[in-house]
């Protein structure tokens, strides 16, 4: 009989995961896979409260680790990608910029995700600090709730530039605008992303099957296409 799984996935995975799941469905037509995108932190809290998620793809490895430690995980913590951040703009030639351009007086607002709880925001802050620009650009910063929201600030022109996920910048909805500038990953700690099979999915073969599918070459191609750097 057909099985069913709910996948809770970090919002930055949206485009890659949609494609992966479509491919997966081709192979496992009778099975039912639902993906729910959202903030990794929210999923973390909800899983602790018994949310019906079978797989949890976090944007930050810290959350699955914490869950594994407190016994909410059935599998070990499985890293699946490293995230990269880019400088992106809808109105300027971002590919000709660098972080130093952010001090330009033409730029009044710079959007980053909230470093307090969004992993991409945290890396953005680290990169700015490492470039010794933080103090100078901080007054211009506006904080998005998550990376998609940050992109919207930029996309609507309210912020001239933003630091967003590479996966987002490669998205067709945003890609054609002004290009992007990849921020060197030496400027920030690696943004290691990982997933787990939750305790709830203990006996669920489909969950296991999907976890395995993540290692398939088809999946790896898709992930790379969307700007994720794969582990090893």
């Amino acid at each position, binding site marked *: 009989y057909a099985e069913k799984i709910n996948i809770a996935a970090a919002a930055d995975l*949206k485009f890659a995961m949609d494609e992966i799941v479509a491919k997966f469905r081709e192979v496992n037509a009778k099975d039912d896979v*639902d993906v*729910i995108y959202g903030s990794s932190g929210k999923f973390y809290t*909800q899983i602790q409260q*018994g949310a019906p998620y079978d797989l949890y793809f976090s944007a930050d490895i810290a959350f699955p680790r914490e869950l594994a430690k407190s016994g909410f995980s059935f599998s070990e913590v499985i890293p699946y990608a490293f995230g990269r951040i880019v400088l992106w703009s809808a109105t300027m030639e971002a590919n000709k910029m660098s972080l130093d351009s952010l001090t330009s007086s033409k730029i009044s607002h710079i959007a980053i995700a909230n470093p307090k709880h969004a992993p991409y925001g945290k890396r953005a802050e680290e990169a700015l600090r490492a470039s010794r620009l933080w103090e100078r650009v901080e007054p211009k910063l506006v904080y998005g709730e*998550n990376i998609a929201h940050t*992109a919207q600030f930029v996309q609507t022109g309210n912020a001239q530039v933003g630091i967003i996920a590479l996966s987002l910048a490669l998205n067709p*909805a945003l890609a054609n605008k002004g290009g992007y500038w990849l921020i060197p990953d030496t400027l920030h700690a690696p943004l290691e992303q990982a997933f787990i099979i939750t305790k709830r999915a203990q006996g669920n073969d489909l969950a296991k099957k999907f976890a395995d599918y993540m290692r398939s070459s088809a999946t790896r191609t898709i992930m790379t296409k969307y700007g994720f750097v794969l582990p090893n």
Partner: protein
Amino acid sequence: MMHLTPSDIQAIWLTIKLAGVVTLILLLIGTPIAWWLARTKVWWKRPIGAVIALPLVLPPSVLGFYLLLAMGPNGPVGQFTQALGIGHLPFTFWGLVIASIFYSLPFMVQPLQNAFEAIGERPLEVAATLRASPLDAFFTVAVPLALPGFITASILTFAHTVGEFGVVLMIGGNIPGETRVASVQIYDHVEALEYMQAHSLSAVMLIFSFAVLLCVYTWRPSVKRVG
């Protein structure tokens, strides 16, 4: 432009069901509370009135967070429902219902309380002299006279439940067909930068709501008072 995916349509139905159920239940719960607040003379009605308005001041997703904690396996409500054999409420439709009730209560109670107060004692006294028991008088006199208040309260409650997603997202977990209501669906579309779909769904919601509101307003009686 108005192309809706099946999951959009599912979300709309779920929204209408949720808002309808919440409005109905709140009519049942809110009416006696409002009636009591309007008519009692005990001093502690004032703190109670204030407590009812309190959920409003917390951000919805924070309220959702606290409700999640309370209704979860380790929370008091959760342990209670578990003991009753209902299981846990978060991530279920009824969990959403309960959370929305909690959050929308002031929108039901406050307009009703005002409407009941505006009726005054006299019509109820008259009803009593015409053999109507208090309950009878309540339904045959107080409710019809407070009709504009009922309509306002229901509109605010319904619309607020339709629009609310902070609580719903937190407690519902965004599960298709179960807790993924239209507001969450639109939010997802926006987050996924699927603007066309967000626009379509928003437009459908707006047009539908406008039609419903227009019907309600057209049918709504105006208040009449004889000096």
